[in-house]
């Protein structure tokens, strides 16, 4: 289909057909003070060449992770993306495809989603996964609503180790529901166990958590189940599942996650791909789209969207979720990357990530004033600096090192975390990057 802009003539015909004088009249319901009164201050016209030059010069101001040594993490991670991922997802059949409502013309898209679901189920240790959600935060918030539907309870406990953005999205999404959300100050599994009672719908933990700490939540899941509550484990660094005990083995009831680390660049924070998997017994309460395997009338294997009756286009306001789409292309990138890695490659990649973080932590030991607060970590940990982390990060960025994410940037009101810096290492982190980090931090602190 070509994109053909409308002519003035076309517009006038349509306006006269519906009996409207001009286009402004169509917006008369918009409150006057919400309308833009003057034009946006932009140059009226520039040639293609001029636009390219000026946009390129803007873009050069960015300090990107593929130019500078980067230790950024805290929910988004720079990983190597094989060139074939980008090549394959740009095939027109995938790149421009619409929601695969018509299985007769969408087998490729449906099969890709089906494989994606299988991969997500396998790596999270669960029985079913949906065809993806917007991102890790929305997936976690959907997991919470799902737990409330299943348990018919309304008390939610959020671990202090949960990413602050996830915490906020859960609260925003449930603002008009009568839920009682407890953002606790504890993260430890023992302390969390004590908060659960017979009114608890679910407890949400993250592993590895926001500060990079790793825990085994088996005991927590057992306590949850004693009280009839559900355990939701959020995973922001999906590569960790190549090395750690998966949430399913720990007894999680719902796993929510951010799949960006596989196949997707950090891209200023999105678009990403939310993962949501669960036990088969909760399938009907799972939000979002689901591709299912079936056979056609000749008995040949095929795929369709299934259980759509839970979804918004059929059940309207009674749907399991307001999310009525998925991150199709990002999910495809995830699946291609994971397929290229294979099971062994995935495990190896996880081990390399962990090793790089160990190397980084050892190098940091030479800095007396810097304290590593984690007892455990995967590829990310939190440092306590002798000065506020935000200014240190600014200074280091000016010297060409992206040092990490200051906790205070995400938890602005907590003064105890002012000096805390979250740093991540991945397979992209080189020994020279680590050297630069340590040298630059030493200089900045002195």
């Amino acid at each position: 289909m070509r994109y053909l802009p409308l002519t003035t003539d076309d517009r006038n015909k349509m306006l006269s057909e519906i009996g409207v004088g001009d286009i402004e009249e169509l917006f008369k319901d918009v409150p006057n003070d919400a309308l833009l009164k003057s034009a946006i201050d932009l140059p009226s016209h520039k040639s293609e060449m001029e636009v390219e030059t000026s946009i390129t010069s803007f873009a050069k101001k960015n300090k990107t992770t593929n130019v500078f040594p980067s230790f950024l993490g805290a929910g988004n991670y720079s990983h190597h993306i094989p060139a074939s991922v980008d090549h394959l997802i740009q095939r027109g059949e995938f790149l421009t495809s619409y929601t695969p409502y018509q299985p007769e013309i969408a087998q490729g898209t449906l099969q890709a989603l089906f494989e994606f679901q299988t991969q997500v189920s396998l790596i999270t240790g669960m029985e079913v996964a949906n065809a993806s959600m917007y991102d890790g935060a929305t997936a976690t918030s959907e997991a919470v609503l799902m737990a409330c539907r299943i348990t018919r309870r309304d008390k939610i406990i959020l671990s202090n180790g949960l990413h602050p953005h996830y915490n906020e999205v859960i609260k925003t999404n449930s603002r008009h529901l009568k839920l009682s959300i407890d953002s606790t100050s504890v993260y430890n599994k023992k302390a969390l166990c004590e908060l659960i009672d017979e009114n608890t719908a679910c407890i949400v933990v993250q592993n590895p958590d926001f500060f990079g700490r790793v825990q085994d939540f088996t005991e927590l899941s057992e306590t949850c189940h004693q009280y009839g509550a559900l355990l939701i484990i959020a995973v922001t660094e999906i590569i960790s599942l190549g090395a750690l005990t998966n949430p399913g083995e720990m007894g999680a009831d719902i796993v929510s996650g951010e799949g960006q680390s596989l196949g997707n660049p950090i891209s200023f924070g999105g678009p990403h791909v939310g993962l949501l998997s669960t036990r088969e017994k909760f399938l009907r309460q799972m939000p979002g789209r689901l591709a299912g395997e079936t056979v056609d009338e000749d008995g040949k294997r095929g795929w369709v969207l299934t259980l759509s009756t839970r979804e918004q286009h059929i059940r309207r306001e009674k749907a399991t979720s307001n999310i009525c789409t998925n991150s199709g292309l990002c999910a495809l990138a995830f699946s291609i990357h994971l397929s290229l890695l294979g099971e062994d490659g995935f495990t190896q990649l996880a081990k390399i990530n962990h090793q790089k973080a160990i190397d980084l932590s050892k190098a940091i030991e030479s800095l007396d004033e810097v304290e590593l607060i984690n007892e455990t970590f995967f590829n990310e940990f939190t440092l306590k600096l002798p000065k506020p982390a935000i200014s240190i990060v600014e200074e280091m960025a000016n010297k060409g090192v992206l040092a990490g994410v200051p906790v205070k940037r995400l938890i602005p009101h907590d003064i105890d975390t002012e000096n805390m810096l979250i740093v991540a290492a991945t397979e992209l982190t080189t020994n020279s990057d680590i050297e630069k980090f340590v040298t630059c931090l030493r200089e900045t602190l002195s």
Partner: protein
Amino acid sequence: MIKYTKQHEWVAINDGDEKAAVGITDYAQKQLGDIVYVELPGIGVKVNKGDEAAVVESVKAAAEVYSPISGEILEVNENLADSPELINNEAEANGWFFKLAPSEESELEELMDKEGYDKYIGGLD
């Protein structure tokens, strides 16, 4: 005694019994087609007449089931979880959804009897 609603639910109560059973009618199951899933209310939940108490899902559609009378849910039909086809096979017997303790016996009188309901659905086709 068995009574019917215009939304195609039935409610049955025996004389002297404390529990009334609720389900969907044979006509309703035929309209829905193969039923694949039923979402049942929680035990102890109090419903008013006309409240949405359950959801029935078929290969064609999902539909709400409204409580024909007010009362407290005492029992749900656990068999439907594994065998939702019970509703297709025995809609007005073993395919019941839930049992409740009626709080307003008089509400039953406002509903249709078998003859009235048959006449009502006769006018629908």
